[in-house]
């Protein structure tokens, strides 16, 4: 298994009442093994849709995604997904939640529990193994969700605005956590966000997307050592560049929303 991803002219069309909506258009990207990539774009640009296509949760309308040399056809053991609102099962203990992917793979029960506990240790939640998710805070839930994804030893970690629902403080702790985990496991990470700071703190490469239909507007290599400081001159410069480009797209996307609203 390999963690290299090639996105080859992906289109996504949705049927809607007013005719077809083009959500993604001719998306091209190459992501290296072990690379940390952020998909950045205005809301509604289709970045989550693209992530779900890579995951195999939804099919593309055109083009293909290659993992190594294998085209994606549905979900696969090489990819795991972290959802924005955690998607933990309230009826399972934290440990059983983490072990779910292993259970799905038919790993023996004792082995499931052992590996789940091991990963809970990695994310610092071993003492909560027997608790149910509703006892945990948002940040802790997301750590459980990350542990669940890591448990199946994927090559690629797909993360859909995983820290979007967290408060600023927790978010920044979680970003550090994630970098620490990433440094340890060196998985390919594709991380969807609408926050420029988040993208700059985390990513090797930022793929900036346009407003609908989503296309890749620019590719930015951050090439700075971690941990990064937002006050660094180079970071400020990158930030200014991204902000300028993103603002155009946000303006366009808001204009689209107004048009959509007046049509309705």
């Amino acid at each position, binding site marked *: 298994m390999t963690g290299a991803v090639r996105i080859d002219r992906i289109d996504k069309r949705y049927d809607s009442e007013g005719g077809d909506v083009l959500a993604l258009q001719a998306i091209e990207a190459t992501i290296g093994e072990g690379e940390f990539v952020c998909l950045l774009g205005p809301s509604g640009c289709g970045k989550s849709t693209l992530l779900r296509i890579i*995951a*195999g*949760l939804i099919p593309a309308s055109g083009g293909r995604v290659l993992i190594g040399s294998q085209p994606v056809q*549905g*979900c*696969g*053991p090489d*990819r*795991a*997904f972290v*959802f924005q*609102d955690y*998607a933990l*099962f*309230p*009826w*399972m203990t934290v440990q059983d939640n983490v072990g*779910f*992917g292993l*259970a*799905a*793979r*038919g790993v023996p029960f004792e082995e499931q529990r052992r590996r789940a506990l091991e990963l809970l240790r990695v994310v610092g939640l071993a003492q*909560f193994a027997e*608790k*149910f*998710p*509703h*006892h*945990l*805070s*948002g940040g*802790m839930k997301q750590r459980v969700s990350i542990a669940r994804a890591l448990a*199946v030893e994927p090559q690629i970690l797909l993360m859909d605005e995983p820290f979007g629902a967290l408060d600023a403080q927790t978010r920044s702790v979680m970003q550090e956590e994630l970098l620490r985990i990433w440094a340890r496991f060196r998985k390919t990470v594709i991380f969807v966000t609408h926050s420029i700071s988040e993208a700059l703190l985390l990513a090797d490469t930022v793929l900036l997307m346009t407003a609908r239909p989503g296309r890749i507007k620019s590719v930015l290599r951050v090439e700075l050592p971690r941990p990064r400081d937002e006050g660094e001159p180079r970071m400020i410069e990158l930030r200014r560049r991204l902000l300028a480009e993103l603002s155009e797209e946000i303006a366009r996307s808001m204009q689209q929303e107004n048009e959509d609203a007046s049509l309705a």
Partner: protein
Amino acid sequence: MSAIPRPAAAPARPALLRWLTHRDTLLSTGFILAFLLVWQAVYSAELMPRWAFPSPARTFASLFEMILDGSLAKNVGASFSRQVTGIVLAALAGVPLGIYLGMSPYFRGATLPFFRMLYPVPGLAWVPLAILWFGVGFTSTVFVIFISGIWPIMFNTMAGVQTLSGQYTDVAKVYMAPRWLYVRRILVPGSLPFIITGLRLTYGVGWRVIIGAEMISSIVGIGFLIDDARWQLRPDIMIAGMITIAIIGLVTENWLFDFIERRTLDKWGMKASGT
């Protein structure tokens, strides 16, 4: 939200005391006492003929006589075992059918209109047919409970499956969970708020039809007890039977389902929802 487990329940005595002195408890107890007073007044004023309208005292005396001579236990036992059998069968059939209805658009399209036609047929309408098929007694009563009770549990389970968050299904897909694991560990527990609501309704329906069914198709049971009292001109026994039904229904329904909810939904923080 906090990671700290909730404190253990307060000691029993103060809780009981608090309950006894709670405003709603006082109000509802007061209302029941007022009702008994009106009942007594109607009796004393002979607004109704005495042969058809017993005093509260006579009614409760009969209730205790039946408790002491064991006839109440015998009839309650008969009704209760039919109720439990009928409900368990309704759940054993209704939950899997409901899950399948929720999962398969084809099965739903084919069978749902038919089920919707059967649903409004009152349970008691099945009694004569049940007697023809199964004779007088246990089986026919259980059948009537089953056929009236299966609908709420089935329709609620279906609704539970249909309203289950699509995200849980996405998780199952991402980790490529086999179908049986998906059903057992996601669909069933995820639909549990609805399943429990359905069971509550089914339990209530069973308890309501059983009395009518027993009046016609049985020679033991609370329904029989009430109906039989007609031939002896014993309205006190009829009312004592009704009080028994009310108390057993209330207590078992609350205890049983509150117990199930405490062990599941409360523990998981999934309270709410259901229809």
